[in-house]
């Protein structure tokens, strides 16, 4: 974990309401797939930094992709190249694929695709078989297809059928599993209803399934206890420090 003053290199729109921002940290900071960072919006009125997944880490350069939601992300989309932003990284545990797990299913929807791209980025070169099931709202929301196509097999779905299969990512994944395409491990990120559907679908199966959660944060490092989630054992876990990735069996969604 490091506090850095990063220099913005590029900040561009890549799909409807989706921005890609690349910055240099001035040093190589190792980041694992599924880890995230806290980034300032570039405007001092926002005292909280935004938690955003690391999409790509190449040398000193880090790329994040984010949806324009509220005030902070709209502000961040305006930051010009050359500007400085305070960034705290890397945060959280990230996704791990074990040696023994060869066939990896990635199930993602909405902004959940960005941490999932980091998994493809890290594990495709290591020879893992990656089957990705990616859901978008509609055709105009589609982005990062070139990155997603680095999977061994890619299934794209849209909620309205305007591109790919007319269903959601979990339905596409479960249908494929029913056809006998069974993975060794499932990694997922997306809206809570999607994760809940996946959790329910995996309940009866003996396949490890990991989900990456979102929660509003303060410190981002585990100190303030603002970002907790409920665990099935009745205790709280900190999404920023103990997560954001949890075994789907361990958390109540």
């Amino acid at each position: 974990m490091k506090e850095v003053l990063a220099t913005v290199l590029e900040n561009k729109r890549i799909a409807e309401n989706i921005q890609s921002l690349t910055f240099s940290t001035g040093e190589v900071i190792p980041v694992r797939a599924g880890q995230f960072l806290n980034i300032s919006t570039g405007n001092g009125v926002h005292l909280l930094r935004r938690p955003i997944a690391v999409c790509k880490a190449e040398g000193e350069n880090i790329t994040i992709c984010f949806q324009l939601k509220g005030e902070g992300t709209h502000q961040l989309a305006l930051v010009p190249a050359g500007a400085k932003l305070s960034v705290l990284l890397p945060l959280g545990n990230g996704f791990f694929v074990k040696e023994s797990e060869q066939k990896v299913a990635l199930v993602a929807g909405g902004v959940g695709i960005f941490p999932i791209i980091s998994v493809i980025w890290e594990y495709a070169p290591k020879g893992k078989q990656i089957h990705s099931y990616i859901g978008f709202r509609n055709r105009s929301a589609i982005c990062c297809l070139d990155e997603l196509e680095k999977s061994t097999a890619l299934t794209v779905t849209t909620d309205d059928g305007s591109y790919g299969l007319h269903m959601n990512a979990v339905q596409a994944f479960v249908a494929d599993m029913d056809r006998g395409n069974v993975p060794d491990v499932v990694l997922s990120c997306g809206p809570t209803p999607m994760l809940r559907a996946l959790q329910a679908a995996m309940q009866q199966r003996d396949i490890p399934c990991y989900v990456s959660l979102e929660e509003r944060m303060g410190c981002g490092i585990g100190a303030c206890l603002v970002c907790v989630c409920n665990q099935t054992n009745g205790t709280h876990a900190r999404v920023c420090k103990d997560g954001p990735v949890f075994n789907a069996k361990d958390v109540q969604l």
Partner: protein
Amino acid sequence: MANLSVELCGVNLKNPVIGASGTVGFGREFDEIYDISVLGGISTKGLTLEPRLGNPVPRIAESRGVILNAVGLQNPGVDSFIEKDLGWLKSKNVAIIANVAGRTLEDYAQICAKLDGLVDMIELNISCPNVRAGGMALGIKPENVFEVSKITKAQLKKTPLMVKLSPNVESIATNARAAQEGGADCISLINTLTGMAIDIERRKPIIANNTGGVSGAGVKPIAVRMVYEAAHAVSIPVVGMGGITCAEDALEFIMAGATAVQVGTANFTDTMAMPKIIQGLNAWCDKHGVKNLAELRDTLILN
């Protein structure tokens, strides 16, 4: 290099910068980023008699220049703190201030009895709902402030008592005097101001608890005014906080009468905020020919 050290109720702080309760946990996480022994002190997350799970999420929201929080005192309980965290914190050579909270007056007394002699100072959080005050915070009415100060002071044979005042009151000066009369060795302020932030699409408060405590840069002028009023109402030392983000902010509090300061929300905006404030205090003193930072305390010249 100026001398930044200050003395607070017989406790020597190497500098006046203390991590504010609830924003720095028990110090471990920040210590992964910088050595927390550079700090003057750490005020722990509010400790209760039994472990507490706290409020549902969302526990935090943002509004321009401020944040709101309602964590609801999630903590592992005072016994767990003593067993698992205190030893480590002692090895860090920072003043340890145990922030304590209770549902009843007896809770406060019992926690203080457990911590007496183990920590450098006790800080009473009297801004949480209390049975004695009919579910209201003990920190609101001066008679309750007096009572909780008195009952806890009676348990503290070795450790000085700091009473943390709530700003949501009629007269901060009256409550400061009530704490002093009850036996407080010093006071700290301000705790958070009660506020609300609304998601207009959902027509619902953003925070699950509906209301939350407002803190951060935007509250500073209110906090400075209250610290000034409190410091001039009592003869015991005052620890100031509320919206401090840089050395210059800290100096406003010190000139208004604070002996030391606490930094909370700024730790979220910049994880290195406190080390930077300490460096900044040093630089300011050097630039202004100040040899001892303590000389600046209460040097405000009113118009």
